[in-house]
């Protein structure tokens, strides 16, 4: 074969019975040395996650007063964290991580977004990582992309957006890879070869097709069996019929972990389902279980690299302190940040607690933010990648005051 592509190499490796990552044939090309051994995963929780329900300040009398009817604290089934905060039972599968110091939270955090309480604008600002009033403009790039711009030796596959939506957080000048487990390319071997021929003279299509085939094979193990013909078409038809629906947070996390073990160092994906205007007790539990599955999957998939990993799950804003008339909560301001990974000095709830008394609330209704959520992300980047303070305050998060080191790194 005159023109060896990564796919060709991969096919040969598979035919030889090697796993893709272990194959000496493809290691030099596909998995050249990454700029760092540390890893950062950012999970965007879309819909405004209720931090007060996730990490319940049951030691604050204001909580019980505002939320009579919600189960609260250890008496309501939550796990006591430190005598003041308790963890919603939806994350109980992560309890061993908390005990091992691999799970922690920062409370009363927010972006600079205030008062408007629109999911879309709030998410734009969270992903842009800029000051309020600037997000959503057309040439905005995302803060993870700006981070990648500062990493020496970063390559196209250093940063990965997982999922089918465009990820603003990774949009920008630095190249990155976007892939979803739903983007499966299930072709019969013969059709795959014919497509290679058809794409051969168009360099744009050829390069993208090689990458698509590479990721698809890596994730889905396609192009392998001799009988893949009919099966391939069936699988393709199935994945098309299912649209994006079969993609779960667990599958997104599993794919992210696989790439992070190989050549990716930064990954981001989203989990929705947090907009609990009503029936919060059921909906919050379900959303948290999906988040727990995703974090568990990351930990399992990352293996020993978990020790060099920081996972941060953040949301656009929090929810009202008081319960509304339909067993839910409405759009608020301060929320909580979830952190996990072996790189975390966990087992604690970080942050200054503003209190839930009458005069303590933001606009008389929301948890008052006491720290910018970007400061935690910035300190994590300083710890993981050695990013300088000036770089973080001027380039990655322009306008941010990093403040004191919250000492979140292990």
């Amino acid at each position: 074969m005159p023109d060896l592509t990564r796919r060709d190499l991969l096919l040969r490796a598979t035919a030889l019975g090697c796993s893709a990552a272990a194959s000496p044939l493809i290691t030099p090309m596909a998995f050249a040395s990454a700029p760092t051994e540390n890893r950062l995963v950012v999970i965007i929780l879309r819909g405004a996650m209720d931090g007060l329900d996730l990490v319940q300040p049951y030691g604050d009398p204001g909580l019980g007063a505002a939320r009579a009817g919600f189960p609260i604290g250890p008496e309501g089934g939550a796990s006591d964290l430190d005598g003041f905060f308790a963890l919603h039972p939806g994350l109980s599968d992560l309890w061993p991580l908390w005990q091992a110091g691999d799970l922690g939270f920062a409370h009363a955090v927010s972006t600079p977004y205030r008062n408007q309480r629109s999911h879309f604008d709030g998410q734009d600002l969270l992903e842009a990582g800029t000051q309020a009033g600037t997000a959503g403009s057309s040439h905005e790039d995302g803060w993870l992309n700006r981070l990648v711009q500062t990493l020496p030796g970063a390559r196209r596959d250093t940063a990965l957006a997982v999922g089918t939506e465009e990820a603003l957080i990774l949009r920008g000048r630095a190249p990155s890879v976007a892939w979803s487990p739903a983007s499966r390319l299930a072709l019969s071997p013969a059709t795959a070869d014919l497509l290679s021929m058809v794409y051969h003279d168009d360099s744009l299509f050829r390069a993208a097709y090689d990458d698509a085939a590479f990721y698809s094979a890596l994730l889905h193990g396609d192009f392998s069996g001799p009988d893949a013909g009919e099966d391939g078409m069936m699988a393709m038809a199935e994945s098309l019929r299912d649209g994006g629906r079969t993609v779960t947070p667990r599958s997104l996390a599993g794919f992210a972990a696989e790439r992070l073990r190989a050549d990716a160092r930064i990954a981001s994906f989203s989990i929705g389902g947090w907009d609990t205007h009503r029936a919060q007790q059921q909906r919050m539990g379900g959303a948290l279980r999906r988040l727990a599955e995703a974090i568990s999957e990351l930990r399992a998939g990352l293996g020993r690299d978990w020790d060099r990993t920081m996972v941060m799950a953040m949301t656009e804003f929090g929810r009202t302190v008081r319960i509304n008339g339909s067993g839910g909560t409405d759009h608020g301001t301060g929320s909580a940040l979830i952190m996990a990974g072996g790189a975390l000095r966990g087992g604690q709830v970080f942050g200054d607690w503003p209190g839930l008394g009458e005069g303590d609330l933001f606009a008389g209704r929301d948890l008052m933010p006491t720290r910018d959520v970007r400061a935690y992300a910035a300190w994590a980047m300083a710890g993981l990648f050695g990013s300088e303070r000036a770089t973080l305050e001027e380039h990655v998060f322009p306008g941010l005051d990093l403040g004191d080191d919250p000492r979140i790194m292990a």
Partner: protein
Amino acid sequence: MTLAAPLAQIRFGTGLIPGQPASTVEAMLSDLAAADSVAASFPQDSYETRMAFARDFTRATRARRDSDAADEAFLTIRRQLYDDLTRQLTITLARGVADPSGLRDRLTWFWADHFTTVGKRNIMRGGIAAYVEEAIRPHVAGRFGDMLEAAILHPVMVLYLDQERSYGPNSVSGQRRGADLNENLAREFLELHTVGADGGYSQADVRQMAELLTGLGIGDAGLAFRPNNAEPGPETVMGRSYGGADPAALSEIRAALHDIALRPETARHISAKLADYFVSDTPDPDLLEAMQAAWRVTDGNLHAVMTALMTHPAAQVPGPGRVKRPLHLIASALRALDIPAEGIARAPARRIRRFVERPLAAMGAPWQGATGPDGYFDDDAEWIQPQVLAARIGWCMTTPAALRPRLPDPRIFVQDVLAGAAPPDLSRAAARAESRAEGIGLVFAAPAFQRS
């Protein structure tokens, strides 16, 4: 000498329908100047209809906590909204398939993207198609200034770019509330809609433009002008003074929009974007000059600008050009498969979701869901990222067989849909495919069909 009709219809329209004669460049341009009969055959929602619906929707949303029945009513009207959004896509697609050449649809899609709006709140979620229908489509062969006015002053745009929250700091309302400008619309107006990012304006011009636009708001009947929100005094934008009447008037904003529409920077920015969309991402300077000259001579008549583009020698070079946007790809594939537009218009929402709406999202162009006011991707490389190319290939391989009981012979099909200009490798691949479905899929997935 213009392109042969079939190649012209591939480049400037929505592609060939086997067995039907293709339009020449001249025929396309004369159709474009004539009445829009396709729109009449496939009517789209009006803004009034959507406003009435939005009021019902808001009522149902507020009432949903009252009782189980009210909650059920809310769920019903929400399903109706989703069905309406899908139906708007269905109509948009059916028109692109029904039109003899598809030029008017390509232009409508271009301008809807140029003046992108996204549904953030109730009123707007169902209103985007009406906005395109009322502010964009009637003007694609008219004066740019008229389209600019219709788009910028449409309630959907005013709401999308937060103009109704903008107060002149020295206006009556601004003083009373201590409120200030919101620069969102003003900035995008200069950067995206008119003179362009390299149009030579400063932050001070953005600020002045924002002051000029104060007063635009939304009332029950649509656009409202609120003199109490308007910054007093004239504003100077890029060296020219606008407004200053007391009390402030909407007509001052209109006059400014029409003046900026005629600026050479606007002509240059828009001409380059149109040439980029239809011909090449590195367009011939002489082509751009011809388009700008047409703009100058006709005061921004877009039919004249398109004539300059479509008849220029640089636009006649045969061979695969720009990558088709996802809706264009799907419309051209449905035409190639000879799926009748009437059948598309009658298709149930669930089929449109499965074969069109979800695939559009997977290809990077979620229906009415651009990520920002700059619209969908611009670069071919973005449209052909691995992940979205996989979605294109998947659609091409599986959808044709699901839509047509008996697929054509790929060996003949490959010549029919590419006007006999199929590259030899593609003809060979189509002939060697393991099944008809895969043969058709290869043709659709090939650069020769993916590009126009």
